[in-house]
């Protein structure tokens, strides 16, 4: 597969993502500067983590107006798989490609730690290889990851099965203690209506080798690589 990894001024996880996709999973991957306007020829788009534009105004608010974002919206509308990780998730929300917003962590602290995520429902090529109810172990690293949407939006997300990951404990129990940032209903990741766009605060690209503490993050990339393309074509 050919991955486009978007680099905004201030993106910091682009090379981690490249390393995992190219060196660990042996996929084609390219890092594209945010002024790129053509995403044809790529099979998937990654908006990585970081602090685009210094998190000025609101996280992701300025990156939303980068030239590449129009191409990302077009790519997503055509059904192309898009993942926004951490700052990428914030950019997707600011762009209205996903509902809700990510606000300051409840603790007001930057949280850099491993979390457990329970796979909920939701048909998406990004998590097709992870069965509902199973638990994966992936780190977070953010100060503004507190997912907010109004109750009507949250109810709709749940009804549509668009909550893909929830923070939980090692046993898969969704508890207040396992919620690292105060996210509404422990939400860690959601998809758009069609399922091709996933936004998540945890960093799968930082759980790609045993050396760094685990490989559960690869299950997300491998979902897309092994099963996702089949889903999209079918």
């Amino acid at each position, binding site marked *: 597969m050919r991955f486009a990894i978007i680099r905004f001024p201030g993106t910091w996880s682009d090379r981690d993502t490249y390393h995992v996709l190219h060196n660990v999973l042996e996929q084609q991957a390219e890092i594209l500067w945010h002024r790129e306007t053509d995403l044809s020829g790529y099979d998937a788009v990654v908006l990585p983590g970081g602090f685009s534009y210094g998190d000025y105004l609101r996280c992701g608010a300025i990156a939303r107006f980068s030239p590449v974002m129009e191409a990302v919206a077009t790519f997503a509308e055509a059904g192309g798989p898009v993942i926004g990780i951490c700052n990428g998730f914030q950019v997707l*929300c600011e762009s209205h490609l996903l509902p809700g*917003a990510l606000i300051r962590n409840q603790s007001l602290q930057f949280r850099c730690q491993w979390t457990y995520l329970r796979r909920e429902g939701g048909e998406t090529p990004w998590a097709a290889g992870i069965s509902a109810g199973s638990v994966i172990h992936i780190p977070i690293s953010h100060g503004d990851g507190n997912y907010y949407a109004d109750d009507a939006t949250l109810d709709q997300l749940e009804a549509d099965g668009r909550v893909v990951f929830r923070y939980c404990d090692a046993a898969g129990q969704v508890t207040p203690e396992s919620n690292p940032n105060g996210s509404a209903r422990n939400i860690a990741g959601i998809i758009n209506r069609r399922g091709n766009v996933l936004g998540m605060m945890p960093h799968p690209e930082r759980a790609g080798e045993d050396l760094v503490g685990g490989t559960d993050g690869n299950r997300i990339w491998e979902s897309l690589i092994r099963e996702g393309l089949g889903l999209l074509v079918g």
Partner: protein
Amino acid sequence: MSKREAKVKKEGPPTATTFLARVFVSLKPTVNDPEGITIGGALASLGFDGVRGVRSGRYFQVTLEASNENAAMAQVDQMCSRLLANPVIETYSFELVEA
């Protein structure tokens, strides 16, 4: 001002007025504001027993040129709804004065 500049000005568009917009952005009442809560706690610990709530927000000063006040209002409103505030979590208000 030289004669040439005067002529250009005469033939150009109607003179624009410079305005100053003071923009206030705050979190919607339904959105939790941990920063405001923490500041409220700090005020209480300083002995301000009467404090009943703190909400944090942002303040912008935007200087702009527009043909008249209505045009300036319309522009600032667009700036707020498209960039300065995120309507999902925030509300905004602004006041406009001639700069």
